[in-house]
């Protein structure tokens, strides 16, 4: 087989794996109940979690919804939905296929591009996540007066930053999927635990300055920190810059850091996933079912 046809085969395998996995993910995600319940769940779940945060904020600040901290928290929390959805969606596919459907071995031994297959499985969660983000932001604008200035909005930067962020989250999900291949338990908590921990260290609900000094570097290393900041700035402009943590950085600088860290995480995810996959194959874990 010459190198040209090998590349063409790889490309078609990658696209096939992604497309089919995305279709499968959507079938699983949308068919677990009837369409009405699915729609209700998709609306109520994100709104309920946002409302908990709003009530807590209202109590602590005695109803100071005019403070720049409110849009900071509200938007950070809204976009953080993507972190749980994309990252956990990809890593959970390993547990789901291996433990629940018992199909992982058939997919692994088929001519699929396995990492791409897992990323494809995350597409459905990205779509339902997008729905949740939109609902949360629209409700924020309509009922809580989150000050989004549509005239001043930097739409191209918002779209590009959003897509790069989703790619970055997918790579973090792949990294976790690799780790999940090595944990032979019905253990989806790996993704959830990481998403939970990053909630505190990525400036989602409070600026990094609030953290003790020794914990702040963790936040500065996380691409999610810069991604959330950039999304806030493109939507609410100067209000988002009211906090000192990243105020010294311009949008271009934030974008460059996000891009660099995304590239770094992509390389890291590729290496870690490959290593974990080989280890799982050596140890016979790819089809081992715990029955927990």
């Amino acid at each position, binding site marked *: 087989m010459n190198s040209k046809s090998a590349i063409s085969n790889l490309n*078609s395998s990658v696209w096939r*794996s992604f497309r089919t996995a995305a279709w499968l993910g959507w079938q699983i995600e949308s068919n677990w109940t009837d369409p009405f319940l699915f729609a209700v769940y998709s609306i109520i779940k994100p709104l309920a979690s946002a409302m908990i945060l709003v009530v807590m904020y209202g109590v602590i600040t005695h109803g100071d919804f005019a403070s720049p901290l409110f849009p900071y928290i509200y938007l950070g929390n809204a976009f953080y939905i993507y972190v749980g959805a994309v990252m956990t969606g990809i890593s959970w596919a390993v547990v789901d296929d291996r433990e629940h*459907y018992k199909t992982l071995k058939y997919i692994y031994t088929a001519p*699929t591009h396995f990492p791409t297959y897992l990323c494809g499985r995350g597409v459905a969660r990205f779509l339902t996540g997008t729905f949740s983000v939109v609902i949360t932001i629209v409700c924020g604008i309509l009922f809580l007066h989150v000050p989004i200035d549509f005239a001043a909005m930097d739409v191209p930067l918002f779209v590009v930053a959003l897509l790069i962020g989703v790619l970055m989250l997918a790579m973090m999900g792949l990294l976790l999927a690799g780790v999940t291949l090595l944990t032979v338990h019905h253990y989806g908590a790996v993704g959830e635990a990481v998403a939970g921990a990053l909630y505190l260290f990525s400036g989602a609900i409070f600026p990094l300055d609030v953290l003790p000094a020794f914990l702040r570097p963790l936040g500065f290393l996380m691409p999610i920190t810069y991604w959330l900041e950039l999304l806030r700035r493109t939507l609410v402009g100067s209000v988002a810059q009211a906090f000192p943590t990243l105020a010294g950085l311009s949008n271009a600088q934030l974008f460059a850091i996000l891009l660099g860290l995304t590239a770094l995480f992509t390389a890291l995810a590729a290496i870690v996933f490959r290593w974990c996959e080989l280890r799982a*194959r050596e140890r016979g874990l790819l089809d081992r079912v715990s029955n927990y």
Partner: protein
Amino acid sequence: MSQQFSIETQDLGRVYKIREGKKKSVKTLVALHDVNLQVPRGELFGLLGPNGAGKTTLIKILTTLLAPSSGWARVSGYDVVREAAQVRPRINMVSGGESSGYGLLTVRENLWMFAQFYGIPSAEANRRIRELLQVVGLADRLNTKSSDLSTGLRQKMNIVRGFLTDPQVLFLDEPTLGLDVGASRDVRAFIRRWIEQERARTVLLTTHYMIEADELCDRVAIINQGRVLACDSPANLKRRLQREAIFQIETSSPNGLSARDFEALPGVRQVAHHPGDGKATFEFILDAEEVVGAIINTMTTKGVRLLNLSKREPTLEDVFVDLVGRSMEEIESADKEMA
């Protein structure tokens, strides 16, 4: 790529490390030991052995799911470790006795999805799906959610999944496990027909059903404790025992009589004891027919009544007992007791 053998292994070994409890030491379990096999194209090759013999481990290695600890293996001419991406489009696998599949999807959707992974165009995939479902008697369940299928029907769906991609080499791991007698017979007939349609196809089938191996396979490797003990056609394997006399004796309640009581008798090569309800069956492989006199003598002195005595042709079960020293049934029940 042209190659003589569809499957080839040399000194293939696999060792599992098992940790017993969190603080206990790591134990090693040899699942495969220096397995050397050569399966030519067009052959229906059987691996016969009890549960835990290493059959599934061998299939996992050959299908790129598990890495070997030593030796090498090639499928369709490609190394299963270094060239796994070349092996995968050429193979498929079906494991029996499990209910895998996406329960939310219909039978057609499950099968169509796997066809997509193999790059089969939708129209062609749907044509093959209808054709194969007809063969296994599932045509009327095309649009049934697979979660609504019984275990046996799910197994049939999985069998269709294996054949759907028309692989060069098909691995069937206990394909009839969990199927009723009629369905097993149909599946065996279909496997035979499928391989005869196209001589480039190869099947490796594992089973612990003697009749399945005898009826279906061109050649059989008898495997126990990770070692291949013999490998030949079923006829040749049985011919090894044709010089010996094989007797089956049915008795009344054996009064404590066991296989051990006969093993010391001169001329007795192997004994298998199958206890029943109020009676028992003993199977003997003897060096010569005359030895049966001493056996009957032993039984009568113990007060055991003979109900039936027959001499018969050797079966693969006898070959297995001759090679291993125990029947497959005895090995499996001993393993269960240990577990």
